[in-house]
């Protein structure tokens, strides 16, 4: 059953060496700050299917030993400076992917199968740098080559959502990739804007947008927990702040200064 815990307790339960799945919408920046505060290290990031400032912060803080992603970018604010620097320096194991392949890997774990076939990809150099991906002859139907990717079962999935109820059901709306992460992951930790008293599973309409507590191990309250990234139906992204990050994080020193300010700012919100 779902435990409702403090942000610190949630972060403290992510162990070195574990793989951590993080999304592109519903990003737990509060959880990210708490992980860095807790001295997280040797994380194997799985970006579902890409990441922006969250991955860049964790990389800059030295918490990441491996990353599987289809892209890391600050969007309008440009490239991800700490990711790019780490790639050049070879500071982590890099597993480049393509968005639907990461989603397919999670789906394989969701279904308890070792692999998932996926359309396209043939001809891409990704096949060259991902020896864990295979091209097979389709075992059924007309002869033809098909790419298969291995299952991705993250140790922990971490995301941020508007609401949890007391039972640990999470309102995710249409953002079903958050459910996909949770189905595939061994454990799922969620930060939320607030905990509500009503049962989110009570009506068909409400339940349709819910990740059931069955998949949720820990919930922590973190108001404005996605900031400076957006949270649907709650607040837009703080583009000025992300641009400020992009500028400062160009240098190691600038990044350190930003990070220290970011961590104390997150503490004030909490």
């Amino acid at each position, binding site marked *: 059953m779902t435990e409702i815990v403090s942000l610190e307790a949630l972060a403290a339960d992510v162990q070195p060496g574990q793989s951590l799945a993080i999304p*592109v*919408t519903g990003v737990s920046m509060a959880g990210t700050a708490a992980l860095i505060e807790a001295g997280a290290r040797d994380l194997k990031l799985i970006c*579902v*299917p*890409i990441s922006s400032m969250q991955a860049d912060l964790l990389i800059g803080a030295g918490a990441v030993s491996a990353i599987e*992603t*289809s*892209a*890391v*970018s600050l*969007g*309008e604010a440009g*490239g*991800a400076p700490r*990711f*790019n620097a780490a*790639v*050049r*320096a*070879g500071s982590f194991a*890099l597993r*480049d*992917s*393509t*968005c*639907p*392949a990461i*989603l397919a890997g999670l*789906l394989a774990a969701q279904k308890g199968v070792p692999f998932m076939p*996926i*359309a*396209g*990809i*043939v*001809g*891409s*150099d*990704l096949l060259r*740098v991902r020896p864990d991906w295979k091209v097979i002859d389709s075992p059924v139907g007309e002869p*033809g*080559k098909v790419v298969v990717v291995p299952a991705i079962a993250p140790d922990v999935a971490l995301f941020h959502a508007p609401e949890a109820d007391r039972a640990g059901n999470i309102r995710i709306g*249409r*953002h*079903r*990739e*958050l*459910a*996909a992460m949770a189905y595939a992951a061994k454990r799922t930790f969620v930060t939320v804007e607030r905990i509500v008293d009503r049962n989110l599973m009570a009506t068909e309409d409400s339940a349709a947008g819910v990740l059931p507590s069955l998949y949720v191990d820990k919930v922590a309250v973190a108001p404005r927990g996605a900031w400076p990234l957006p949270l*649907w*139906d709650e607040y837009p992204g703080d583009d000025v702040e992300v641009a400020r990050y992009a500028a400062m994080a160009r240098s190691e020193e600038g990044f350190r200064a930003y990070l220290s300010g970011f961590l104390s700012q997150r503490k004030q919100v909490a």
Partner: protein
Amino acid sequence: MSGERERRELLINVIAGLLDGIRHVAVGASSPIPAAGAMLLRARNERAGKPPVRISILGSQEHNFFTNGAVEVFDCAAQGRVDAFFLGGGQIDGAGNINLVGTGTYPATDVRWPGSFGSAYLYHLVPRVILFREEHSPRVFVPKVDFVSAAATTPEVRRRGGPHALLTNMALFDFDRISGGFALRSVHPGYSPADIRANTGFDYVEPASIPATPAPDAETLALLRGRIMEELGETYPAFARAMQQAA
């Protein structure tokens, strides 16, 4: 070209033309010019009583026809329900291959770009992929990309998708899937075929006579500056503001 607004209006108008006939186009969250081109086609079709055009803007909450999470646009493309999509590239080569990963030797690339996103997949599955890269220079248009994020043609597998055209700040190329290469279709006002040759690092077919890319007509300009800017402002407010300021 007379200015920034005119440059963008021409690109938008070309894109609307390239999309003609499609029913559903997906556009990236940070692609205001492709989105504007799609909106222009939608407005034109509405006026002409032609079939409606569906525009999915990825990552947008408002212009989102999807309810099954991040995977749906990919599934939808695999089902043949996405007719057109846009891809760019840090490098694009003469075979239509694109590189979104970086230059030099992988993995410790000299320059690292964000990554391949969905390109390796969507290039195979969307019939009309429009390569759109504003910068037209030999560093972008190279003989051979350093890393193939997505391959344009793959005779070893059946595919419905691939490049349809390449649009830049200077010119418009068609892509021929049989020969696997580009042919110059038109050159934007202010440039000559020689300018294109000088700024393109890959070889391409150049017909004897190359027309100028047509500028939008008065009716199109009125649409663009009115309704389209309004629609665009809902999703790309910064871009719409910049367009108006450039006027």
